[in-house]
């Protein structure tokens, strides 16, 4: 999943607004505790997700991720629910079944746990949708610029820019090395094969990336790079950013009020 160039409302927002929105939504995901409010947040984010006009392939990925999230959460919470009262609907390992039974205290699926899992998966859905909206509507360099404006040190900003620049080249190089190793008879099946493949991939990949790093560092040094950079692109708050932030702030206040009965 990556940035898509579109002319939607979210694309026009300042990256700082989107960073603040992410923080607010992340807090809301934690604060909200009723199934109704969690469902409401999920529906708002779902509408926002479709407003970014995602391609069909992204919708499929999102549906798949959400499907996996609900299955994993419902199963795990079905097993690990420990609030009382809890009603076991299926006992897999009784408490008195040997050493494992004693160590685990018995393994059962609880009805309340399954329901809790469904409700909690709304949080994961919201988190997934939020990340998709930000990633699809914000170019990585704009996000770095936004972070810098929030006071993230210049050197970390430079580091992130270099990392993003290196990423596609490294991924491509890793693929090339693996193909070359496979052509020489490397078998990657099973966990042992994966570890062996990883060992054989890592050394040439790191050596190659260090060569690239040296070239980049030399280029930066001969240009007199000190850590400070100027940007061609300038970001500024528009009225839409202020309105969006006001709405987000209002929702936050209401959520905190209702959660803590203020």
């Amino acid at each position: 999943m990556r940035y898509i160039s579109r002319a939607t409302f979210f694309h026009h927002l300042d990256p700082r607004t989107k960073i603040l929105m992410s923080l607010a939504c992340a807090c809301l995901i934690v604060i909200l505790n009723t199934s109704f409010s969690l469902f409401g947040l999920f529906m708002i984010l779902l509408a926002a997700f479709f407003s970014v006009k995602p391609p069909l392939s992204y919708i499929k990925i999102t549906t798949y991720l959400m499907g996996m999230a609900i299955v994993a959460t419902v199963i795990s919470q079905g097993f690990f629910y420990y609030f009382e009262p809890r009603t076991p609907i299926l006992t897999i390992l009784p408490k008195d079944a040997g050493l494992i039974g004693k160590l685990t205290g018995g393994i059962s699926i609880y009805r309340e746990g399954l329901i809790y899992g469904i409700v909690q998966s709304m949080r994961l859905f919201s988190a997934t949708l939020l990340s998709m909206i930000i990633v699809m509507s914000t170019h990585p360099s704009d996000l770095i610029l936004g972070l810098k404006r929030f006071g993230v040190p210049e050197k970390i900003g430079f580091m992130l820019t270099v990392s993003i620049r290196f990423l596609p080249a490294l991924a491509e190089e890793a693929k090339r090395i693996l193909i070359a190793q496979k052509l020489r008879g490397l078998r990657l099946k099973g966990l042992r094969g994966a570890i062996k493949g990883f060992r054989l991939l890592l050394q040439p990949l790191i050596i190659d990336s260090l060569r690239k790093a040296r070239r980049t560092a030399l280029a930066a040094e001969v240009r007199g790079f000190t850590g400070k950079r100027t940007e061609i692109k300038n970001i500024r708050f528009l009225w839409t950013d202020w309105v969006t932030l006001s709405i987000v702030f209002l929702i936050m206040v209401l959520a905190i009020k209702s959660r803590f009965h203020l």
Partner: protein
Amino acid sequence: MNSYISSVIFIFLLGGTVFYIGARRRLFKGLNVHELVTIAVFCSLLYIAGLPFKFGLSRIPFIHAFTYSIPFTAVLFIGIRLVPKLGTATLIIFGHSLLSQIISRGINPLWWPYALLAGFVLELYFLLCRSYLESRANVLGAGLLRGLVVYIYFYYISAPYIWHIFYAPWYIFVQTLQGVIGSGIGALIGFSLSKPIISAYRHGGL
């Protein structure tokens, strides 16, 4: 005060202590452009190392902590051995976390303490041992410590607070154990792979 907020305060105190001790011992040497770019490359390499896990190995149920921690620790430790300075571990881990948030997960500051803790714990370990992964025993100790702290923090603090998902103690124990073993193996792999890389890097062979 809830456990998450207490943990955030603790992490910042830990970071402050680590860098205060570092400053007292005059270990702050600053990072030149070459080292900064090397650290940036390792942030990307950590992301690449995690990709097979995201697309394939994570499907293996129950052993994901083990399969993920091997490549992560190996790449991380090679990076630390290449730039053995105070702050390298934190910059690589936190940089990788920010990078994956920018590229695929979306910015979420609630996960930053988790990444910072993983970095600060290693920095403290290096300060106490006065060694930056220079011997096999030191490397193994750092790997085991990383696995222990990161998985316990994730299962006891981060996941219950951020996702409201709870795990049974026996499950946390099994996952942490796998994470510790995986990190230990990854650390040893990283140590053995880093020797020729370091020699080429230090003597201008690249």
